[in-house]
């Protein structure tokens, strides 16, 4: 393999841990940064929930520290900043780095049998661009006029100097632009690495579903994040250079620009973005369900084509975010049909998951529990989406808490549970140690129960007509009677936050003092576990493995008879087989 020479391992601290080009170190950098921002974004969510349970009352513990001027209460401008930054941080600085940055970097080379990414230096730049964007978003909080407060969608005129004066929104916009650059650099790497660096015999249909999910995500990232980049750039020009792209004033063509254009740019990106966040989750869950049901993934090719189908369709449905913006009825109908068409591949994928665990020898490990939890919340979230994709029902539900509940179940709950599924699953690979299964199960049950109740509460409040983003919803007569359900939803959200404590204890304890892991603690057949050590050496594989079969060869009775175990690895041959020779000759 001349393409992948073994480079000497760097010895200096800076080259090894800070400006590293090793995909495994970069994965950990993304993981740590992402987890920190997950805590940050989660804390902001707690503040929002406090406001909805007890509007205008002093926030316990945090209030006296952060909101001194008001005696600990959240003011309306602070409140808008909090929900804006909660959305932005969770999407761009928590889920993206964990699900794509960390797992993408860790698993792609290991699972396809590569010694590193195709462009290791670009990979390093990707992380450090992300780091700069993280600094920018934190700088946003230092503005006297408050952090970004135009909503995560940054619609003009809210995001112009009129709607959000000061540098808070400017820094948030620049942060989005820079983090977009980071995503694109990562995406280029993922795409090229999977195309060019697969081990001999690793055909496209022998790739684990995780790699498929991440690869398709990378394609969406590379194609659609630049559209958001353009939008963010033009808003920033409007704010700083005095241009009028999205600022109206007189009829278009005489003086002013058109704020609706930004909505188009935003959702051309924004809709693929929700699949950017869920495709890796689908991939990880698809693999993990198979591994721990000890059965091959049901209709693997069907799942792959379903994911490809969703990827393609996701590019042509963005109009369903703009039903209420005003659009020609024919166009609305087209977007409605395309949107509902996505449920076909999505349901196909879902049925494949259910068939995978059907009558399997399920091992109830922590990653498996999180995968099952993800299947549950994603199913619930997906069903609630049908009412939003249909124009006639969306007219009533638009901009209510129902929308918030829906996208949190799919994007937040499903991505969250899949992130932890992946984290518990690859923890031994990353750190060479095992996590405590008891604490892990505690974390799982707390998370899955309270994540479901929290977002179901939002669905119910929204279905009853509660508008999203209200500072004090109960000053409206028609919402007053929803005070109880809002309080209970908030209690549930607080419990969800508390349920993360076992994870924090487990994570730190296991990183430093967990039990040393076996090479392949889960008995799974993919290259990341069977062809390299845990944690892997610097160049991953002493010899690049030759792949002879698909990723889910589990529970095969013939294998059991010949080898006495219920699985056979992607590199292993059955007695009498000569597949490696054939693969090498390919």
């Amino acid at each position: 393999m001349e393409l992948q020479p073994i480079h000497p391992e760097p010895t200096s601290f800076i080259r090894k841990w800070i400006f590293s080009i090793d995909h495994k170190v970069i994965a950990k950098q993304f993981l740590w940064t992402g987890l920190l921002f997950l805590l940050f974004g989660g804390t902001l969510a707690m503040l929002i929930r406090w406001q909805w349970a007890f509007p205008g009352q002093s926030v316990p513990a945090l209030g006296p520290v952060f909101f001194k001027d008001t005696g600990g209460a959240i003011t309306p401008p602070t409140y808008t900043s909090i929900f804006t930054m909660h959305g932005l941080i969770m999407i761009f600085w928590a889920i993206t780095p964990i699900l794509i940055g960390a797992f993408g970097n860790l698993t792609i080379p290991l699972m396809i049998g590569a010694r590193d990414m195709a462009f290791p230096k670009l990979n390093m730049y990707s992380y450090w661009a992300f780091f700069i964007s993280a600094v920018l978003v934190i700088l946003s909080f230092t503005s006297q006029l408050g952090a970004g407060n135009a909503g995560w969608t940054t619609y003009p005129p809210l995001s112009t100097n009129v709607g959000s004066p000061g540098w808070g929104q400017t820094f948030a916009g620049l942060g989005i632009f820079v983090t977009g650059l980071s995503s694109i650099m990562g995406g280029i790497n993922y795409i090229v690495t999977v195309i060019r660096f697969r081990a001999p015999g690793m055909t496209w249909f022998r790739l684990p579903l995780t790699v498929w999910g991440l690869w398709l995500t990378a394609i969406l990232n590379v194609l659609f994040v630049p559209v958001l980049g353009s939008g963010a750039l033009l808003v920033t020009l409007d704010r700083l250079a005095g241009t009028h792209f999205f600022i109206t004033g007189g009829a278009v063509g005489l003086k002013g620009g058109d704020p609706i254009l930004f909505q188009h740019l935003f959702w051309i990106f924004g809709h693929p973005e929700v699949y950017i966040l869920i495709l890796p989750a689908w991939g990880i869950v698809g693999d993990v369900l198979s591994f721990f049901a000890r059965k091959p993934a049901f209709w693997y090719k069907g799942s792959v084509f379903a994911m490809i189908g969703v990827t393609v369709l996701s590019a042509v449905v963005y109009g369903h975010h703009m039903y209420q913006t005003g659009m020609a009825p024919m166009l609305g109908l087209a977007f409605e049909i395309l949107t509902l068409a996505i449920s076909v591949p999505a349901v196909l994928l879902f049925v494949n998951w259910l068939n995978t665990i059907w009558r399997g020898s399920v091992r109830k490990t922590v990653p498996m529990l999180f995968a099952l939890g993800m299947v549950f919340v994603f199913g619930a979230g997906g069903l609630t989406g049908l009412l939003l994709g249909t124009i006639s029902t969306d007219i009533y539900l638009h901009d209510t808490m129902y929308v918030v509940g829906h996208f949190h179940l799919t994007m937040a709950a499903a991505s969250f549970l899949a992130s932890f599924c992946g984290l518990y699953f690859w923890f031994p690979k990353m750190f060479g140690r095992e996590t405590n299964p008891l604490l892990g199960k505690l974390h799982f049950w707390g998370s899955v129960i309270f994540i479901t109740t929290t977002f179901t509460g939002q669905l119910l409040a929204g279905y009853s007509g509660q508008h999203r983003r209200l500072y004090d919803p109960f000053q409206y007569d028609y919402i007053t009677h929803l005070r109880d359900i809002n309080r209970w939803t908030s209690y549930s959200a607080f419990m969800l936050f508390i349920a993360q404590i076992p994870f924090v204890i487990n994570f730190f304890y296991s990183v430093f003092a967990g039990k040393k892991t076996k090479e392949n603690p889960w008995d799974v057949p993919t290259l990341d576990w069977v062809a390299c050590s845990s944690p892997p050496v610097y160049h991953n594989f002493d010899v690049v493995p030759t792949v002879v079969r698909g990723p889910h060869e589990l529970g095969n009775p013939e294998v059991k008879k010949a080898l006495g175990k219920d699985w056979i690895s992607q590199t292993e041959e059955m007695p009498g087989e000569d597949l490696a020779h054939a693969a090498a000759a390919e």
Partner: protein
Amino acid sequence: MASVAKLEPRMRENFTQSLGMIVALGSWAMMFGALFFVYAGVRTSARVWPPAGLPALPIALPLVNTLVLALSSVMLWIGTNALIRGNRKVLPRYVALSFGFGTLFLVLQVKVWKDLWLSGLMPSTGIYASVFYGLTVLHAVHVFAGLIVLAVIFARSLKGTYTEHNAIRVRVAGMFWHFVDVVWIFMFVALYLL
């Protein structure tokens, strides 16, 4: 894939590098595509273009400028092809010519901006000026970045860094430069001619 696997290692490395650049340019094209989308949105909803009281954009100088940037692309192309055939000596000359035409493009572009600015067209005068300055400045930023790349290539080519064996490094940079040129042709047609 079987046919690719048979290629010699250098060709495989070349393929990986080119593929990376192609994917990156696809991403860049989407960025510029979004800008053209904004322009199309503005233009199709405008009754009068240019709006009354604002100067029309010149055509002559930008047309010359289009040719200048195209020449710059051609020079780099000739130099790179010579390098691939093993003629290392001519590379610095053609890279220098390419750099020169690229710089001339920026100089003429500044003149176009200055003339319009003096005749009263400023970004704050509205959407007409916003799309014009916004699109051309963002393109010029890419030209500037390309010029820095060309300068580095020129310095290295004088030192004899490039041979027919690693010509891919010049070629990949050239792909970016040609891309910037193609974007300009679209921009010239959209902004100045239509």
